[in-house]
């Protein structure tokens, strides 16, 4: 199927514009494995050819569908998310978006060989500039870094962090250690040098099983269990005092949902009140740090059993200025801007979620 056909089949582009939309989670991919050789430093070509990626294996959760992607997102050649024209048709043009933030999930963060991960990160970022940011002014990208090594990650942030196309530094949520750990602080320091938020996206493979209870069997638990990792990261950022050390740090939680966050704030506050003595470096309640330092993307958001619960959830959360719309294109659990948000949202809130909160955070026009 050619792209022209897709345009004809796509949504009408002359639909009256209601709200501006900024999509905070689009996944771009390389058209083929050969692209690596255009961007990897020469000295890594042999390594890449002979050994290649070695990540923490053993958690095979075959997905419900190929590449976890929408069936209609496969371009004529290459994997979903690799074709700029199709991305325009399916996402940017379809809802006349102001901006889309690219989060390539290339597996750099899960590499065991951190020198190689560093070379991969450079290649991915150079590729993003050449293949995505330069051709399409509506796109911004996440900076990919080998975050399990603070020095190497900081070097990549310093190399690319002032490029105006990069909107944030990207982690995936399952890391080797909880992200409050000092081992990651150089990454935050470097991000702040370039005035970049930290984004933490669904996925990855850490040092142990994907739950604190051991290894489950099914993809639904790999996918649906991800909020447990996000909760552990929030707890770690707070209790390790990261926001006392880096008061300007901004953290975006991407594709983790947000229904769990108000109850987590209550739990963190409650534990803190009783065990303050263990974390004397904290000066405020955990919930205060959280409301100041975190942003949240909407997809995959919880869908309560009754409509009024959604509004209770927003009230408990009290972070209306921090919710940012995302499609998660091209993945199967895609959210459409005109379908995803519940009916009955206040018009200003809807506008802020769909675009304005992200516009402020990412300093977009």
């Amino acid at each position, binding site marked *: 199927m050619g792209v022209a056909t897709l345009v004809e089949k796509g949504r009408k582009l002359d639909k009256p514009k209601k709200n501006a939309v900024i999509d905070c989670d689009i996944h771009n991919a390389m058209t083929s494995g050969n692209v690596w050789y255009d961007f990897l430093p020469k000295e890594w070509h042999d390594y890449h050819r002979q050994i290649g990626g070695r990540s923490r294996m053993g958690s095979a959760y075959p997905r419900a569908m190929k590449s976890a992607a929408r069936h209609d997102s496969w371009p004529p050649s290459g994997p979903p998310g690799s074709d700029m024209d199709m991305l325009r048709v399916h996402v940017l043009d379809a809802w006349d978006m102001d901006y889309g933030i690219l989060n390539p999930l290339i597996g750099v963060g899960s590499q065991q060989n951190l020198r190689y991960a560093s070379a991969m990160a450079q290649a991915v970022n150079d590729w993003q500039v050449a293949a995505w940011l330069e051709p399409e002014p509506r796109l911004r990208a996440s900076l990919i870094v080998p975050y399990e090594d603070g020095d190497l990650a900081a070097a990549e942030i310093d190399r690319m962090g002032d490029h105006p196309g990069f909107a944030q530094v990207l982690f995936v949520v399952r890391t080797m250690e909880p992200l409050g750990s000092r081992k990651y602080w150089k990454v935050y320091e470097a991000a702040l040098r370039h005035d970049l938020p930290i984004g933490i996206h669904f996925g990855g493979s850490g040092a142990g*099983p994907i739950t604190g*209870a051991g290894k*489950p069997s*099914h993809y*639904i638990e790999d996918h*649906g269990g991800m909020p447990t990792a996000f909760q*552990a990261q929030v*707890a770690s950022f707070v209790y390790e005092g990261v926001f006392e050390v880096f008061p300007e740090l901004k953290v975006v939680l991407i594709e983790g949902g947000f229904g769990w966050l108000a109850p987590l704030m*209550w739990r963190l506050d409650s534990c803190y009140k009783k065990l303050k003595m263990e974390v004397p470096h904290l000066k405020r309640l955990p919930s205060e740090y959280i409301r100041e330092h975190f942003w949240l993307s909407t997809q995959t958001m919880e869908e309560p059993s009754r409509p009024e619960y959604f509004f209770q959830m927003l009230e408990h959360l009290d972070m209306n200025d921090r919710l940012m719309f995302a499609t998660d294109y091209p993945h199967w659990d895609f959210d459409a801007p005109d379908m995803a948000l519940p009916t009955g949202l206040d018009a200003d809130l809807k506008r802020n979620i769909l675009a304005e909160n992200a516009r402020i955070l990412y300093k977009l026009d």
Partner: protein
Amino acid sequence: MKRVIDSDIHNELPSLKTLIPYLDDHWVAYLNESAFVGPNANDYPAGAPTSAREGTKPEKGPPGSDFGLLKKQALDAWDVEIGILTCGYRVQSVQNEDLAVALSTAINQWQVDAWLEKDARLRASLVVPSQNPVLAAEEIERFGDHPGFVQVMLPVRSYEPYGKRVYDPIFEAAVKHGLVVGIHYGGASSLPPTPVGWPATYVEEMADMAQVFQSQVMNLVVEGAFDRFPELRVVLIEGGWTWMPAWMWRLDKEWRGLRRNIPWVKRPPSDYIREHIRMTLQPMDAPDNPDYLLQMMGQLDSDEMLLFSTDYPHWHFDAPEDAIPKGLSESLRDKILYENARTFYRF
């Protein structure tokens, strides 16, 4: 005072020496030679303010180890009709499985002698070596018909999540003897307690324990434990509960999208959860605004899920009246304080 069932009272072993009369010569010699002092997951650091309410430490031994003090502070103070003991002796982290079995049998017999026979209001939880489910099932067979034991205790941190079929012998034996399965805060599985590694501080580990409960709940439903054992009843003890509404919404949404992968799960996960799972009240993780707490109870879409607990001797509240949320209707208050536990445990 309203009638009360307290679903979480900790009875602690004074020391490993207490078990010596219950162990055979081989293990007595082995323990003497090794100078082993007993399993310890360090779930409650001895000096931490959360580990013991003021005045709960007896002259000798850890809080919760003295019957007289526990009777006065946990049973008489509340006019408790039934108090469920939740012994947290962590035999599951003893890698020598035969020793774990010997310690389980010893501590269960000690629970009969030192607790159940002393006060008719008490019920107890079976300590089982769940790291080997077949051996754990044998332990359930050993004591399962004793009327004082009302549940099998599993630490929430496990080697494998509890919905996996490897645990079927435990559930089969529990169901056969009409026992509830209690999944309790803590445990030392040797695996990280989070999907992202080891937290640095105790306060963080304590907070993160709620996510381990979430993983267990999801796994029990997804792997079909309630389909294989329709009679299975599970109580989540000391794991908090305000996370449950959003977790049910998430699980239901996942099920709508991915149920073709798990065709044995015939109903939305929240249906299974409301039917098969209960949660103890403390710790409440309560918001400052009391209305929000009532809203959270409403979001459970069930008034049967919460069971009153003090979690004695751990510190969650100061005055007894703070142990129960304010603003409850009479009927909900009675359900939480008494009726829900009576129905679920079949007292």
